[in-house]
């Protein structure tokens, strides 16, 4: 508690890495380069481009006042994507708000995401942007939780339900390193250990929890070692290396699927931009820090690898970028074109069946008010006129 400003302590690089920052394969890691088809590698690249493009577009829209608050995963995109790519259709994905790449990989509808960012209700979005209720051949995707860490126990229970019913699905959940300080995180891990739940929990350690550095979040040397408290296996990987993430998560997912229980994985990365559009990180950290981390950028690294490996060439790159730009612009426009949500939506889906006297009465009150009437004239409970 002595320092005047929280100096960022550069996290230990004692972690699993396959790709060096310059896109070369690390000495001795050749054997670990995952066997992934050329097509799949290009798909990964496309998702990375889409993620970066979409988040930049959203930040611009936020600045123009189109939406109220936006967060970005710039520099962290390999964590979500590498992990998501290790899943199979039918698995369950519990992202936090910095894994856009994970949901884009599994074809989350961007128009709906946009409509959500605009503050529409899910019912309303569903109505105006119809789609089969589940994407075919996709994973099941949860919305992200607002209460940090609150979905960790949920993911554990979700996986347990599969296990108890003999279904071979895995649940995979993300949490920021800051959120590991919440009780929910430990509850989830402890139950996962005891109940042998087939799940994988990923701590995406981007070094900051808004203004609080990872070094202030815990005295533990790593976030991976938090698993020791719960008897779970744990891994620590370079989160900016998509191969390392994919390989490690794949092994954990396969193990869970085979009945081997849960794993905790720490992916070491860095939040390049502000926490979200309401934040200004210049107040609490130095530019140098981000500059250093930019040299470890996961997208450039992977891109170099693809160029070196002859998978990508300039023309393809340009084509992918242009396609992404065009598609996302269309999706965003579709999302923005959704008409405003009706106030009455607020009463939907709290309970199934009858909502009860008071809610029914209040719903009528609001309708009356919106119709220009006085909603408080009912003095006998017989109903708002």
């Amino acid at each position: 508690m002595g320092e005047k400003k929280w100096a960022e302590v550069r996290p230990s690089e004692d972690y699993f890495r396959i790709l060096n920052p310059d896109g070369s394969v690390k000495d001795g890691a050749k054997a670990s380069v995952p066997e992934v088809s050329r097509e799949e590698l290009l798909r990964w690249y496309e998702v990375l481009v889409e993620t970066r493009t979409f988040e930049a577009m959203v930040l611009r829209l936020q600045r123009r006042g189109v939406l109220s608050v936006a967060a970005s995963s710039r520099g962290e995109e390999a964590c979500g994507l590498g992990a998501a790519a290790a899943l199979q259709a039918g698995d369950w994905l519990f992202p936090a708000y910095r894994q856009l790449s994970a949901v884009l990989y599994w074809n989350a509808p961007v128009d709906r995401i946009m409509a959500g960012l605009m503050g529409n209700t899910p019912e309303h979005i569903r109505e105006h942007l119809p789609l089969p209720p589940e994407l075919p051949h996709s994973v099941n995707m949860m919305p992200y939780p607002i209460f940090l860490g609150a979905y960790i126990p949920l993911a554990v229970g979700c996986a347990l339900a599969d296990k108890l019913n003999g279904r071979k699905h895995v649940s995979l959940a993300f949490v920021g390193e800051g959120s590991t300080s919440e009780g929910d995180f430990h509850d989830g891990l402890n139950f996962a250990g005891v109940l042998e739940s087939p799940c994988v929990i990923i701590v995406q350690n981007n070094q900051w929890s808004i203004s609080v550095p990872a070094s202030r979040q815990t005295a533990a040397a790593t976030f991976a070692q938090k698993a020791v408290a719960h008897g779970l296996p744990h891994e620590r990987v370079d989160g900016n290396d998509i191969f390392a993430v994919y390989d490690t998560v794949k092994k954990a997912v396969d193990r869970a699927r085979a009945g081997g229980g849960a794993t905790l994985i720490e992916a070491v990365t860095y939040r390049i931009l502000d926490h979200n559009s309401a934040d200004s990180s210049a107040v609490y950290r130095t530019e140098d820090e981000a500059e250093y981390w930019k040299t470890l950028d996961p997208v450039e690294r992977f891109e170099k690898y693809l160029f070196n490996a002859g998978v990508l060439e300039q023309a393809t790159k340009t084509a992918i970028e242009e396609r992404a730009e065009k598609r996302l612009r269309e999706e965003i426009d579709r999302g923005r074109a959704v008409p405003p949500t009706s106030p009455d939506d607020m009463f939907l889906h709290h309970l199934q069946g009858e909502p009860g006297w008071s809610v029914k009465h209040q719903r009528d009150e609001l309708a009356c008010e919106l119709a220009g009437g006085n909603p408080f004239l009912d003095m006998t409970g017989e109903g708002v006129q």
Partner: protein
Amino acid sequence: MTRINELPVTEDMNLVTAVTHTLRQEMQRDPSVRVMGYDIGPIGGVFRATEGLFDEFGPERVIDTPLSENGLLGVAVGMAMRGERPVIEMQFLAFMYNAWGQFIYNLANLHQKTGGAMKVPLTIRATFGGGIKPLPFHSDSTEAYLMHTPGVRVVCPSTPAQAKGLLAAAIRSDDPVVFLEHTKMYRSFREPVPVADYTLPLDKCRVVQEGSDLTLIAWGNMLHYSIAAAAAVAAATHASIEIIDMCSLAPLDVAPVLASVKKTGRCVIVHEARRTAGPGAEISALINEYALEYLKAPVKRVTAFDVFFPENQIEDAYLPSPGRIKSGIEAVLNYQF
């Protein structure tokens, strides 16, 4: 909805055996019903409400968990959203304060958050209420916290037969339901409970006794004290007292209360919960809003006091007694504008 008294075969049960019986029946009926909690396995719960279930259904249906209310609730919600029907035991209602985050954010909110795409068909059985002189915080009646929270149903039975029907309905409901079991009532009396399978509505209060001079509202163990108090008053004055068992606390079944008070013009609300911002406040405010014209006297709340549940030596003075309820009835009955 079956009429209970049309079911001929009955067995005498008390509240706790009715709960066990119902859990067993529902578990036999539906394999997705799983009982979860700490101490609910081989020991059958500290009140023995799950006795025998572990032996009958095994450890995948009766899941003993680590000692964390928050973990228990969160994991069970995760199961429920996948179609399981967990019935979790909250050993004492007050321990749920530790799980308040999961309660609000996941249990109560998940259905709404997902625009109805996900359901949480989960039942929390929570023991509550005073009278058995246990340890501190083992007698809390904080149903008002629950009632102020959207997205969750709250019911409280006051007889074994009612407990069966409400618990079965809670388990079958696709909504999260808190089912309140009063510790003092667990073994306080038996009654014949139909052996066949039935449910009771989760959203309907119950008129226990009709009357024209005063409406008396209570639930749980307080209903029994209220019946006794009403009988004592009636014996002395021939007053005709309507008694409502407010077993459906959330959503509150308002219409019968308003109808009754419009008829009687007088009302007393009884609860074990603390008074300020307690359940009675809502009922009284609704009467104030929608039946004021009919009132012949102030609505009085006969309750415990705005303090933490006290030490054993003085808990009798804290809880409403039949005597205190009688005073409340008399005060309201005798009032003239």
